[in-house]
């Protein structure tokens, strides 16, 4: 397994301006529509924000060498996660899948053989995400992979604001004074992986490594994090990245 490549950090002082600018510049009609769909204002209380949990399974960790094999999306709000609106795609990667990642993802050759390329489902995907705040666990996979894959197919990438449940978890467990002190004492850091994080909130164990189940797991985790550490009135700008 390869480690995570160091990447330039995406920092957007004003996401809404960025989105508006991309809407003007976009050549691709689907991307133009995506960027033009307004997102809630950064002062909006989180309880009023329509969200979509997103998870991808990939063949590795480097977006330049590896590909997306499946995408799961679960639209939701702080109040409800309606499973009827869930979306799930298995994709055929441009490069063949190796055995190791098959075992890891439970996706088989035959499923992939009949699957479409990302290009064929991209319009649908963007339509589901448009106007919703995307929630992921660890943005450094979903963001670069999607950006690179879209750039390769449509000539321009796609970057948008996200809520990252892993970085919310890191704020609680890695960046507090107590956490730093305990690290200074040489104690191992608290795990902020999806399942370990869920366990802290009493959330059940789901069978992992399925993009849709992980998306659902992420949506539930965000509801738990908000109810424990924030309030329904917490403003979007305090938690999006």
């Amino acid at each position: 397994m390869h480690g995570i490549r160091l990447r330039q950090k995406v920092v957007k002082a004003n996401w809404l301006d960025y989105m508006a600018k991309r809407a003007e510049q976009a050549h691709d009609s689907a991307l133009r529509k995506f960027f033009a769909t307004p997102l809630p204002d950064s002062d909006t209380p989180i309880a009023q924000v329509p969200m979509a949990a997103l998870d991808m399974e990939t063949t590795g960790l480097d977006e330049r060498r590896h590909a997306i094999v499946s995408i799961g999306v679960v639209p939701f709000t702080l109040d409800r996660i309606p499973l009827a609106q869930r979306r799930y795609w298995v994709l055929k990667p441009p490069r063949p899948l190796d055995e190791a990642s098959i075992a890891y993802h439970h996706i088989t050759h035959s499923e992939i053989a009949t699957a479409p390329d990302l290009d064929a489902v991209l319009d649908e995907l963007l339509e589901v995400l448009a106007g919703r705040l995307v929630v992921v666990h660890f943005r450094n996979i979903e963001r670069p992979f999607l950006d690179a894959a879209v750039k390769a197919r449509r000539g321009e990438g796609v970057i948008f604001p996200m809520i990252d449940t892993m970085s919310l978890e890191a704020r609680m467990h890695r960046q507090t004074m107590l956490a730093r002190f305990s690290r200074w004492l040489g104690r191992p850091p608290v795990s902020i992986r999806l399942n370990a994080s869920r366990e802290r909130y009493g959330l059940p164990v789901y069978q992992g490594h399925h993009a849709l189940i992980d998306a659902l797991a992420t949506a539930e985790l965000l509801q738990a994090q908000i109810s424990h550490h924030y309030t329904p009135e917490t403003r979007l700008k305090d938690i999006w990245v």
Partner: protein
Amino acid sequence: MDVELLEIRQHMGQFPPFDGLSDELLDAIAEHVQVRYYKTGSDILRFDDTLKELCYIRSGAVEVYRRQGELYNRLGEGDIFGHFSLLRNHKVRLPAKAIEDTLIYFIPNAVFQRLCEEDDDFADFVELERPRLETAAEQQKKSNDMMVTRIRKLVTRYPVMVESTTTVQQAAKQVNEAQASAVLVINEGSNNPRYSFQDSEGKTWQMCGILTDSDFRTRVVAENLSAQTAIGEVVSERLITIQSDASVYEAMLTMLRNNVHHLPVLYRQRPVGVVHLSDIIRYETQSGLYLVSNIFNQSSAQGLAKLAPDVRAAFVRMVQEGANSQMVGSALSTIGRSFTRRLLELAEEALGPPPVPYCFMVNGSMARNEQSIVTDQDNALILSDDFNPDEHDDYFHALAAFVSDGLDACGYTYCKGDVMATNRQWRQPLHIWKRYFQDWMANPTPERLLHSSIFFDLDSIYGEDHFVEALQDLIAQTAPKSPLFLAAMARNALNRTPPLGFFRTFVMEKDGKHNNSINLKRRGTAPMVDLIRVHALACGSKAQNSFQRLNDISNTQLLATGVSDKLSYALEFLCMSRIRHQVIDLQEDRFPDNNIEPENVEDSERHTLKDAFQVLSNAQKFLKFRYPVPAQRQGR
């Protein structure tokens, strides 16, 4: 089915009422589930909210309250709530709060209504108490058909079969090796369709006869035939068989009718075994009927005491064969009465005939014909009014002691409250007994009645039955006209209350406390029997059995329509639960008691028990309201 929904489906599929749903309906639920997380202490349903969904607990724990804030139920993983509101006006009547971090799956009302329409068991489950209790009671009734044991149950091994050309010596050797007592003689091919069959290889055989141990003697040895004689030459042409699904009783009749001791048992036409008369006798000795006749054959108290293990065996067998609580209760009472009667006969043999007529009275569960395997003795002596203590009491004291000691040796332990004929107070002539009852009913206080209420279940089991009948008449005439007495009895009937239900591996009390086990007699059957007794006294019923009392009650206007049925279902279920757990105790070589441990209670039993507790609790509330302490008494 999408793999991603499997997670949800598989979880729900483990818990009632979802565990009985078709795959198609489970898919429909998983497809429409909405999820939400609740932190410890947060409200899930608030009073008077409009409810549009059924709530399913995926993880965590929830408490449901009555409007006044009283705890209604505590629920855990796999439980549902909100269905009462959905079935009524969609307004939340029982608010709910997360008491642990909780994940709820909401099932939209449209899906819920579809489940109720398409799956009867689901509809029964979410409806109020009655249907589920009714169904449980009916299922128990249905399985009673199995009381008829089939003869195949007694077949333990394949029959010994030899071809007719085999020598009798060879055949005898095979019978020996198999430790059997008969051999079936068969021929290849078939000329008589009646006894032809095919073996597992498809070969056709013809069964032409049976040779039994005694046939070897009468047909071979006594006839001075050679051991090398072919068995086909000596076998009897007469063949009496029985089908494997015939009852044990039919098999016994067939043997008697044809004067044979061996019966080949056939499945369709193929022989599957041979039963011998001794197999049937061995089986029948475990039955209550045999036990009772055995009791009367004992010539000493020691002999009777040796039968105690047989009582337990008969009890276990009856339950396994699907008897309901009334059958078990009356069978055990019959056995208990038989022990008592035989002891009285033996006592009279030893002490001589009684100086004055008497009646031996039983009280409590034996009088109600509701005896369980865990029981003590409650009895008394009603003597003729000619009784003269100085002359006669030594005799009756000795008689009472003989019976009481004998019963204790047979497993009916001494009564802790000293309600026994050995107690002089309970060994009195009829006119004194009448005075006792008149006094209890005319000057009642709950404290006085606490110890005497057991006498209001009374039956004669030996001697002058009419003494007890006179007391029963007196009670039936006086009690309905004695509001003070009824109020005091009612108050005592509320001393023991049921728990709220179960939570995980605990028993939940109404104040939210947990216990590791529950005494199902003290917290279920006994308070139920108590409250039924009060209603029965109020309506002048002379019945002693609780189910018969409920019948009498339902013929009056005392209870709202359907309530007595509900009570009878609940009592049946509580009794059966207690009995089943006693069987578990016996099977695991523990001393049976009245306790049940939540971890031994199956999911469906939990829900039904909770319903039964609820029925009892509601009935207790009504009792308080129906038999108030009359005003003039309160004023004093």
